[in-house]
């Protein structure tokens, strides 16, 4: 049990362990080797494992993502790192037309045990082509699994879970979390893919969220608690599959729903969650469901504008108050 380890170190530790355990595992992506990873996740791994297994690729997202799929088809367990979620759009053809579809198209003959990691999310003043959150959007695709580790523990666990999975798994790492620190238990059995985790129990409202917004939601819950509002905070962890059971159980308990979503509002994962609650737990609702999403603009550079666009603890508090009226 490490008390104070960073999210980045936890990821690196998981990659390293996996590579030591299984010769089929390798890491491939832009600047993962000599540079040490755009966010320094793979720092030092080239030296330890060599260029055969820590592979620097040229700038060709489609080809190296597709190469990951090909290697997975051929028995390997590749980890493909895409520098920023926005760049994954260059590999969309491979992710959707191949990775997500091959098992079905082949009538169950060819599964794709591929892990794709990507840095995601706004708040770093990187402008509209390096800051977006597409995890909810990818969650639309059958055949993929979508993980959004928020905690140091999940950063570590989810990489192992993804590698153990026989099908393509996309891991969205919010770039602002790489420096965050927390406790890590490496011997514990990981909570499986598709299970949400309740970080705070409450009776008045349920806040469903994932990724970095978890911490904003927990902060908001503290503020609300001082006002006598008792919020439950649930980290969804996996956006596909969604843990319907945990969501509905919490709705049945609190009867009020607030969803915090890093993506844009229209056609978002929060909209999907609302729809499912409507379908499965309508008569548990005591107020209209609410959500805090990223404002529907390409994220601007200027700090005050960018901060105004993304979910914040204050917005969550305000929305929770509205919900409780």
């Amino acid at each position, binding site marked *: 049990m490490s008390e104070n380890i960073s999210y980045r170190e936890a990821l690196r530790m998981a990659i390293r362990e996996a590579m030591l355990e299984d010769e089929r595992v390798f890491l491939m992506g832009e600047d993962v080797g000599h540079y040490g990873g755009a966010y320094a996740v793979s720092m030092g791994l080239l030296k330890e494992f060599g260029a055969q297994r820590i592979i620097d690729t040229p700038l060709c997202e489609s080809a190296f993502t597709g190469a990951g799929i090909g290697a997975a088809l051929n028995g390997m367990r590749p980890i493909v790192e895409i520098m920023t979620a926005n760049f994954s759009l260059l590999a969309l053809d491979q992710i959707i037309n191949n990775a997500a579809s091959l098992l079905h198209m082949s009538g169950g003959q060819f599964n794709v045990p591929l892990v794709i990691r990507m840095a995601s999310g706004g708040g770093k003043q990187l402008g509209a082509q390096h800051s977006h959150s597409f995890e909810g959007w990818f969650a639309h695709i059958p055949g993929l699994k979508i993980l959004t580790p928020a905690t140091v523990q999940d950063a570590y666990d989810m990489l192992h879970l993804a590698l153990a999975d026989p099908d393509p798994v996309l891991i969205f790492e919010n770039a602002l979390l790489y420096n965050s620190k927390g406790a890590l238990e490496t011997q514990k059995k990981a909570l499986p893919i598709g299970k949400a985790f309740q970080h705070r129990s409450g009776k008045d409202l349920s806040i469903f969220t994932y990724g970095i917004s978890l911490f904003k939601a927990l902060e908001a819950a503290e503020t609300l608690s001082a006002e006598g509002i008792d919020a439950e905070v649930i980290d969804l962890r996996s956006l596909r599959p969604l843990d319907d059971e945990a969501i509905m159980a919490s709705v049945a308990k609190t*009867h009020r729903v607030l969803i915090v979503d890093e993506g844009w509002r229209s056609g978002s994962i929060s909209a999907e969650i609302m729809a499912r609650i409507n379908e499965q737990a*309508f*008569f*548990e*609702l*005591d*107020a209209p469901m609410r959500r805090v999403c990223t404002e529907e603009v390409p994220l601007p550079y200027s700090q005050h504008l960018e901060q105004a666009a993304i979910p914040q603890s204050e917005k969550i508090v305000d929305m929770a108050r509205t919900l409780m009226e």
Partner: protein
Amino acid sequence: MSEFTMPSLGADMESAVLMEWRVKEGEHVTKGQVIAEVETSKGVIEIEVFEEGIVEKLLIEPDTECAAGTPLAFIRSEGEKTVQEPPVEPLAETAPQEPLPSTPAEPQREVPKTKHEEVQQTQRIKASPAARKKAAEMGINLAELSDTSGGAVHLNTVQSARQKAQESVSEESSHVLEVKAEDTQPPKENSFADGMRQAIAKAMSRSNAEIPHYYLSMAINMTPALTWLEELNSELSIQERILPAALLIRAAVKALQEVPQLNGFWQENTHQLKKEINPGIAISLRKGGLITPALIDAQEMDLQKTMQALGELISRTRAGKLRSSEMTQQSITITNLGDLGVERVYGVIYPPQVAIIGFGRISDAPWAQGDTLSVRKVMHATISGDHRATDGHTGALFLDKLNQLLQNPKELL
């Protein structure tokens, strides 16, 4: 030209509130078309028109309470000329023949309202889904809560109302058998459950006072029927599967075809047999109370159709979407309390019907056949008969026939 009147939807219905017209003046209507919704003490019921023609005139504004038989509209048959209608007064201004329901109508319902008030009155109650669910479970009228709280009704409003009201409203049993003197407490305002309770109370008091009941019971070996049903179901899709309840109804209907004396009315000191077998199926409501809507023309249904019709009837009952014919044309009642563990049901006849069939639980029991003792699925079927109309012999014939059918379930297809 004919009058379309507020139907009498049951012996226990004396008046109802016209909620909504589904047709406009001048509109063509066909036989069986639902043309209005009325709110009775048993919930909102759609009412049908029984002839084809043109709606000549709508006589009553929505949200007016009218006694059964009050003309609501004129229907002109095609080709007939328009005629001036006589003035028709709503209920409160024509002297009612007898006192209206023990649950007094709300004051504003007694006089016709201005347009503006009507709009307010028919406004949808704003309540959260959770509040609706809770209120329905507790038999609390959301309209009252909405009046007091102004804005939307939330769960906590319902819960505090519940605390205030204590247990007078909701916990009472919804089943005929258990109608007892638990209604000694004064009825609470005009709540839905109270209205229904009063209606049941009235009908059952009348039954007990007027009808000399006889009661017969028979133990039936259900193993052959249930085994057969299981085999049948194994070949059906989940949606098509048949519940034992439907099998029992089908058996009862078939037995009634052989013993028709039990299917009918005792009215004005005469016994009237009914050709159509419309068993009223006792269905308890989640919000408390009991309704016995009819499975119309059950004699025409095979087993599959009986199952289908039963499913539809139950869901429409729970949704408050029954047709007026289903609320008025019961020719006998079937009640099944087996699910609650009851062994034998001695039902109270619903006047003017002349019998009620009861089914108890199906349980493993020792069963002697010849010299052999074995364990079988056993159920007690009962019949309560009106001794003015039939004798115990008739009831016995019925039970015997029922038993025969259940031993040869193939005949029930």
